[in-house]
């Protein structure tokens, strides 16, 4: 069903110099502590990371609960902040699709799409034959997802020991990891332009709308980068 060789190969991506484990761990430790302070039980905290596995979504959920937002408002706020997962999925799945593989693998494993697992897959897919990529991806996803769940538990249990200075230290780790990963990914003109323009336009659009800035900024930046790249042959 799932080729163990490629699954394990993907799973091992959490080891070594490119490991996302520290960055993922740091942010989910912070989430664990946050959920505890919100009044979640440990089972509910685990359940939350297990089912959502997207950091900004969990943060928005926590913020919405603090202000007592309605369920429909929580749904919209979370959908908005996690809508980036749509272009990410469309930009990943065609690389993994193969006629010999069952469809359920794609619909189930898309749950593993998050920034770190996505960037690792984008960095490695060329080394794996197309038919085996989905199993390799499920390995990456299972590994990063496990780290996230495990770290949520650590953060929940250790929340009393996490003072403000430690939480600030934890908060910077994830953005730094993503920035370095993005710089590493800038191998073509289109991707480089996308990253640079997105970095500029995201914050610029913040002044127009804090809620929509990521989607608007990302859409305009990505479209400009695409058009310029196509014009000069990628």
């Amino acid at each position: 069903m799932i080729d163990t060789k490629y699954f394990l190969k993907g799973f091992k991506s959490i080891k070594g110099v490119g490991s996302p484990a520290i960055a993922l761990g740091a942010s989910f430790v912070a989430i664990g502590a946050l959920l505890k302070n919100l009044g979640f039980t440990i089972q509910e905290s685990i359940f939350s990371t297990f089912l959502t596995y997207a950091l900004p979504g969990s943060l928005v959920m926590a913020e919405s609960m603090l202000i007592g937002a309605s369920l429909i408002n929580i749904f919209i706020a979370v959908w908005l902040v996690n809508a980036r997962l749509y272009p990410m999925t469309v930009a990943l799945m065609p690389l993994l699709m193969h006629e010999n593989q069952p469809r359920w693998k794609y619909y189930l494993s898309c749950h593993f799409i998050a920034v770190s697992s996505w960037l690792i897959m984008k960095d490695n897919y060329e080394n794996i034959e197309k038919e085996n990529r989905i199993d390799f991806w499920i390995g990456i996803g299972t590994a990063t997802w496990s780290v996230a769940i495990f770290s949520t538990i650590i953060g929940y249990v250790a929340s009393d020991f996490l003072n403000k200075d430690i939480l600030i230290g934890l908060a910077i780790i994830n953005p730094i990891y993503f920035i370095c990963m993005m710089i590493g990914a800038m191998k073509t003109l289109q991707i480089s332009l996308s990253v640079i323009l997105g970095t500029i336009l995201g914050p610029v659009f913040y002044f127009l709308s804090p809620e929509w800035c990521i989607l608007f900024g990302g859409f305009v930046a990505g479209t400009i980068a695409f058009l310029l790249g196509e014009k000069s042959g990628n």
Partner: protein
Amino acid sequence: MATNIIIVILVTSLATYLSRFLGVVSAEKIKETSKMFRWFNCLAYSTLAALIARIVIFPSGSLSEIDYLIRFVVVILSVGVYYLTKKNLVYPTLFSAIILSIFSSYL
């Protein structure tokens, strides 16, 4: 907070899974060699860059207590470490946490 926590978690995860699910549905019809795929690839990278820039420049939560100049210096120094260590990802991330803690304690 009268709302049941389990229901909030389910709503959050559904709102998140929705984008992933629709992504797979769309991906079924998109070839990796097509223009459409390259466009979405650009959108994915630019949206991620916008998200990360937002987190660093307009943070919510604990990072917002750090002066933006300090955040900027930490990012520059960490990217420097990334290049110095031949694109190792573990060192710059650990370095960033340590240097930020030092800055926030002593500055």
